[in-house]
């Protein structure tokens, strides 16, 4: 054992420089794992401790309809039974706000929250500056708003804004409030008013999209019972009950998922480093053959020698992992600087490397180094000391021990991945995917090298030898193709997907498509809104006014499907348990086509409905079946008379799953929506919104241009994040490349010396190297690019369901940049090959 330790120390001392790059790859991967896990754990701690604050209650009971009187009685009784000590109510609804000052012709959608005095039961509303939140600030039409609203409307604290039909004075700016999720999608900035003042706005008309919430403080041991009981009480109603615990659980699950999936990305980088370690170990052993033979000659056993190198690999793996932890620490230390003076929850987290993340990172780094070096190290057994007497080649053989080692290593890798992803299925899929990708890259590499083979007969000496070098013994072609190809694949793939998505959105917001959406138009306002939109002075283009109602399927009596109650529907798992927005009309839209049955063109007193094809297939609904829908408390049994194919991508006028025949729903309570083409310029659009809301205060306007901006912003952040990951993979690829060049330099130095002796000048050898790495880079770029094409095709077709487009520019740029990068790194890492004097090299051999 002492010998093993001493030799491991000596070998590490002698060869750490040569192996450095490969362990930097391990370091990068470990840094990614440790940093991602630590950051998520830090943020999670904030969210976990804020779970009550997020709900602002122990138990939250919510509905998006008027509270039915009976439900209120039940809630009151249950809360009393559970010993609830305190409660407060809020109502949230998106609405348009505008400056009361008529000279400012602008309006903006905001998320209105009307609160009672006890709000919030947990957490706190924090105001900007020195002000502290007090409910009295909201008294007498006071309002608190997010700072961004001031900029959008050009108003200041002290000014008045109009919400619906009432004016409110801005009394402060909200820095932070309970229940606002970081990064959550919102339709606009928060505006907070007194619950008592909400009526004066006139926003709570029938069918408006208001979320009514009852926040309750309940003794901790009664929470779960209360939630269970209320869920049972309201299983057939549109009333939702949840506790801070379920929120905590949900947040916990979300974070677990995020942590595990992000760690997988880090693991992929570590595995890439592992593949490099495997390759370097193979070359390293080739270089150490004589030393190993000498050790065997002076009495060392194979097991002792393998132990020496395993210890060396683990030492370097440990050093790489520790470096990774240090890198992660440096990155994490920079986060507060990056967040600056932000007041979001993210800025409240205490960022640091968590012990568990560091331990996991180090464990993975060492384990991957070990797993990937074991199989090549087993070749030590076949090195015979007799090769010291005469030149013998060591034959690589696969024996039972090597096969067993491969099986154990594969199983261990699957276990490692499954552990990181916290799912055996994901572990198996990722490992199989990686193995598949490696096999594809391997064969693609071989195929491409074979395609280039004719160039080995080229008249150009440098080109001929550059091509021959790709398949020389001990070449690093495969490992470079895998590492660099994978990096190129990530980056080109992500960039293509981004371009594809953005162009898809641009298509949807093309010149003729509706780019504004009016919501909550009340039935009596329909003619007024129609006249407003037709008035050319407002600048609106084409529009359509559509009546909508919310409905839920509560039963089916059909040929294949029979569901007696709403509970049956929910349990059926046929995706028909959710709430649907329905309409009625006497014509088909251009994006609709009848597949079965017949559509109507006249009203009827008998309820008839046309069902969208995909849903009908999922729920096994047929023409002639009867479906029961709860439409705002009234149950209507309608006969399915047709099945419609809807082209959702073209659904400019809104796509509907259920379309009723006019006659039955015409007089039911309903609101109207209007997809429309808004005015052309931002100023006209702002004025249009202002004028419309001035006339119809309860109507909300969604401006797709703004939404698209939000989507662009989110996408650019996502793309940046994925590009950073792709960049890390490419960076690892570059390190592996440098390391591979350095490892095989001994061969190159000798060849260069022979070439120089035979008359080749430095320039010729430099051209040879440039061509060799240029070709290698092009191959890696092409493989990555081809992979990216497959990726974008798969994701476009199956995940995003958008048409597949090829962005030739991205792919061509990817191939060119990869080949330039690889050629530059290859030549720069080989500078001493060019500089060495041939005689010294030949003597040394």
């Amino acid at each position: 054992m002492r010998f093993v330790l001493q030799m491991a120390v000596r070998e590490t001392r002698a060869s750490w420089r040569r192996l450095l790059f490969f362990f930097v790859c391990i370091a990068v991967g470990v840094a990614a794992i440790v940093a991602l896990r630590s950051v998520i754990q830090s943020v999670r701690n904030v969210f976990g401790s804020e779970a009550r604050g997020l709900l602002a209650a122990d138990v939250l009971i919510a509905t998006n309809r008027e509270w039915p009187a009976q439900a209120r009685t039940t809630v009151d009784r249950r809360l009393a039974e559970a010993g609830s000590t305190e409660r407060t109510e809020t109502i949230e609804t998106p609405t348009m706000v505008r400056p009361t000052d008529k000279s400012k012709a602008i309006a903006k959608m905001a998320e209105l929250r009307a609160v009672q005095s006890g709000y919030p039961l947990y957490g706190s509303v924090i105001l900007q500056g020195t002000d502290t939140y007090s409910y009295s600030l909201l008294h007498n039409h006071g309002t608190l708003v997010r700072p961004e609203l001031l900029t959008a409307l050009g108003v200041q604290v002290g000014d008045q804004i109009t919400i619906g039909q009432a004016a409110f004075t801005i009394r402060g700016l909200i820095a932070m409030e309970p229940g606002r999720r970081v990064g959550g999608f919102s339709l606009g900035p928060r505006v907070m008013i007194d619950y008592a003042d909400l009526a004066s706005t006139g926003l709570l008309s029938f069918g408006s999209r208001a979320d009514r919430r009852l926040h309750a403080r309940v003794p901790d041991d009664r929470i779960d019972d209360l939630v269970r009981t209320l869920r049972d009480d309201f299983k057939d109603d549109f009333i939702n009950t949840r506790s801070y615990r379920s929120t905590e659980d949900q947040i916990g699950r979300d974070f677990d998922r995020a942590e595990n999936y992000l760690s997988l990305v880090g693991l992929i980088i570590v595995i890439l480093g592992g593949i490099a370690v495997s390759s370097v170990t193979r070359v390293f052993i080739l270089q150490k053959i004589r030393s190993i033979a000498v050790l065997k000659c002076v009495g060392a056993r194979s097991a002792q020698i393998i132990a020496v190198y395993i210890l060396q690999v683990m030492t370097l793996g440990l050093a790489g992992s520790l470096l990774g932890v240090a890198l992660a620490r440096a990155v994490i230390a920079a986060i507060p600087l990056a967040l600056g003076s932000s007041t979001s929850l993210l800025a409240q987290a205490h960022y640091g490397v968590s012990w568990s993340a560091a331990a996991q990172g180090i464990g993975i780094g060492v384990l991957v180094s070990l797993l990937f070096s074991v199989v090549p190290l087993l070749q030590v057994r076949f090195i015979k000391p007799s090769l010291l007497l005469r030149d013998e080649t060591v034959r690589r053989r696969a024996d039972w021990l090597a096969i067993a080692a491969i099986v154990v290593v594969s199983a261990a890798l699957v276990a490692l991945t499954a552990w990181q992803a916290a799912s055996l299925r994901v572990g198996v899929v990722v490992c199989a995917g990686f193995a598949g990708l490696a096999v594809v890259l391997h064969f693609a590499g071989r195929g491409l090298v074979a395609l280039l083979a004719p160039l080995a007969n080229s008249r150009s000496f440098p080109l001929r030898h550059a091509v021959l070098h790709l398949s020389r013994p001990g070449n690093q072609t495969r490992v470079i193709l895998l590492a660099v190809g994978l990096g190129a694949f990530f980056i080109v793939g992500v960039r293509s997907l981004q371009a594809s998505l953005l162009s898809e959105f641009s298509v949807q917001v093309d010149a003729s498509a509706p780019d504004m959406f009016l919501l909550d138009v009340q039935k009596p306002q329909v003619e007024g809104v129609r006249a407003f939109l037709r008035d050319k002075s407002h600048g609106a283009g084409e529009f359509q006014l559509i009546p909508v109602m919310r409905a839920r399927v509560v039963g089916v009596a059909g040929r294949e499907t029979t569901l007696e109650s709403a509970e049956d529907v929910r349990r059926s798992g046929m995706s028909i348990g959710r709430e649907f927005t329905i309409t009625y009309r006497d014509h088909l839209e251009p994006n609709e086509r009848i597949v079965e049955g017949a559509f109507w063109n006249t009203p009827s007193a008998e309820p008839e409905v046309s069902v969208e094809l995909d849903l009908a297939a999922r729920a096994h609904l047929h023409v002639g079946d009867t479906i029961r829908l709860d439409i705002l408390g009234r149950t209507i049994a309608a006969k399915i008379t047709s099945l419609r194919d809807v082209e959702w991508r073209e659904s400019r006028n809104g796509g509907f799953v259920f379309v009723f025949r006019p006659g039955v729903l015409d007089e039911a309570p309903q609101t109207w929506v209007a997809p429309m083409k808004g005015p052309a310029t931002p100023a006209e659009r702002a004025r249009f919104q202002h004028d419309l809301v001035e006339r119809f205060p309860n109507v909300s306007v969604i401006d797709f241009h703004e939404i698209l901006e939000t989507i662009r912003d989110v996408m650019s952040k996502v793309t940046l994040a994925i590009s950073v990951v792709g960049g890390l993979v490419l960076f690892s690829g570059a390190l592996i490349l440098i390391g591979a060049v350095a490892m095989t330099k001994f061969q190159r130095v000798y060849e260069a010396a022979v070439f120089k002796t035979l008359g080749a000048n430095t320039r010729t050898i430099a051209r040879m190297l440039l061509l060799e790495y240029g070709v290698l880079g092009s191959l890696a770029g092409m493989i990555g690019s081809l992979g990216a094409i497959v990726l974008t095709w798969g994701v476009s077709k199956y995940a995003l369901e958008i048409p597949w487009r090829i962005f030739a520019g991205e792919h061509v740029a990817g191939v060119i940049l990869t080949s330039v990068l690889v050629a530059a790194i290859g030549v720069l890492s080989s500078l001493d090959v060019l500089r060495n004097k041939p005689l010294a090299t030949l003597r040394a051999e």
Partner: protein
Amino acid sequence: MIELREVSKTVMSGTEPLTILHPLSLQIPHGEFVAIVGPSGSGKSTLLGLIAGLDAPSGGSVLIDSVDITRLGEDALARLRGEKVGFVFQFFHLIPSLTAYENVAVPMEIAGAADARTRAQGLLEEVGLTGRSHHYPSQLSGGEQQRVALARALANDPPIVLADEPTGNLDSANGRHIMDLLREIHDKRGTTIVLVTHDRELAEMADARLVLRDGRVVENTLQVGDREPVSVARVEEREPLRRASPPR
């Protein structure tokens, strides 16, 4: 005692078998200094490798102190070499990543010797390299490297030292120095020394000679027990063996 019984070695040359060593039997008593001579390709190094257990014979058996080493596995052979056989190569074969001292200490460390450090320093002193112990092989001259290799061969005080053309890669002065050291080791320690050389002058320094040609013994001056020296075949040498270059 080293004993070879009908030992032969055949290798494949392309698809054809090629016999490097024809069946050969001999005994080398303990404390003998024997030189194996013969032209290039006569099978000298192969014979030495078979005695050291570095290579396996195609037929016959090799016994060291009555242990048939052809029946031993790789690990047992390694252990036997560590204990009983020291080896000196023509091309030194020092481990380039280790210093002179470490190269000498390695066999003792493998054997688990407690006083490896002191003994390694002592051996380096014995071969005249006291001040060079922390130099790497690349920082030593050829003669110095071979002296380190010799010290390494003596590390576990083996009863047998096998030397394969130990002067073949050295100038004559250094070659002479190495031979003097081998002689001294033999005389002082009573170590059995088997020296492979194609230099007749060097072979003269040995007590006995074994001459090989084309894989067969053509002369054997070894005395075993009460047996007379055996002359297997007196073959007039048509080409004289190359002599070592005179010292410069």
